[in-house]
């Protein structure tokens, strides 16, 4: 991929994320964060794809980074995680692969349709894995903080 293509992809991913954030009624003052989220996931995805190739790992890594970003922002601003997560994940949605699947299906080339469908599935599995891994990290962090607070409170009580 040439540098121009990468830059165009990054810019359009940011614009797309912001567009979706507006459609989902994100508060206007949070739109810059949606843009950062879109840039982050798309950047990680493109970087990992040039390094590793394939669809599964790049999507997994990009989703992981995006979800961690959302978890951190949610904790900082005391807002629910989906508020930041949804705009982040938009650039990864495998729209292109789904279209190719449908197109091959219509033209009767079922083999190609199957392979495109499986690629879309790989993307979906990658995104699912990324969300799960990062959400588990968030849960563990939350529980660790709760545990430490409880410890401190109980030790203070005994003093």
């Amino acid at each position: 991929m040439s540098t121009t293509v990468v830059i165009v992809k990054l810019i359009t991913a940011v614009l797309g994320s912001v567009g979706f954030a507006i459609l989902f009624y994100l508060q206007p003052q949070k739109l810059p964060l949606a843009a950062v989220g879109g840039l982050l996931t798309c950047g990680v995805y493109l970087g990992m794809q040039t390094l590793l190739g394939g669809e599964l790992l790049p999507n997994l890594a990009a989703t992981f980074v995006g979800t961690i970003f959302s978890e951190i922002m949610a904790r900082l601003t005391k807002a629910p995680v989906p508020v930041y997560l949804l705009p982040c994940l938009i650039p990864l949605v495998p729209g292109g692969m789904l279209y190719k699947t449908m197109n091959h299906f219509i033209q009767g080339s079922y083999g190609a349709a199957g392979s495109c469908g499986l690629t879309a599935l790989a993307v979906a599995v990658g995104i699912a894995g990324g969300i799960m891994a990062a959400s588990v990290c968030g849960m563990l962090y939350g529980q660790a903080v709760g545990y430490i607070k409880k410890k401190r409170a109980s030790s203070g009580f005994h003093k």
Partner: protein
Amino acid sequence: MAEHKAEIGAEPAILPQDTFDRAATYILSLRVDEILDLALDVGVALLSCGAEVHRVEDTVSRICAAYGAQEIEVFAITSVVIAQIRMPDGNYSSQTRRITRTYHHLARLEKLNALSREICRKPLDKETVNQKLEDIHRHRPVPEWLCFIGGMLATSAFTLFFGGTWRDGLVAAIIGFFLTLIERHGKPVINAMAATFINSLLAGLLAILSVRIGLGQHEDLIIIGTIMLEIPGISFGNALRDMLFGDTLAGVLRFIQAILQSLVMAAGYLCAMLFLGQALGV
């Protein structure tokens, strides 16, 4: 001892605000029905604007606990919330709410979450909560025209993202405008699946026709850009998070709903492609 008695005998009205605690329910004189009703109002509003199920269950039980409920059982899936609470004095209430329509409204989600935090810090009376809920529902985070800009921006940006030219982007923006129009004014009156089908069919037809009349250049890229608006990608994400937090049933329901919606979407585009392919002879 005498001092203590004097304090108890004092008027409740002069209690400072921060003495609100688990006995708040008596000061606010809320019946057990009203407490559960109020908690469910917040919970149902959260669920219908796209919150995860575990957040809804958590919010309802926290609010009930803040009003002094002792035993709290809440169960929610994407379309129903069932809850039962029992007060220390033995009164109990059990209510069920059905949710028929869900949509994504991130600003409302955020404000409802803030409201529930506020209630848990310091229980509010019924009128205040109702007033705040009404304000949240009436609040418009962005003006109407900006939603159309959002839709047009989303479709055209993804057409360019997948390698379209500026003319493709222009066509995608026009289609995005119509899709947003149907989304905002059609969805409240038509069945959600039917609306998805009509949207996909319309987007497919417009994309192919625009290339035929020479305005757009790549029908595939225009269709891909508009597909992004119809794919229930968000529901997939929420379904996964639901399953992860232990609400397997809710997650599975949401997942199946998302798959069905994708199939209906695919059917819409397929119809458009088959129809114009046959009619215009590709």
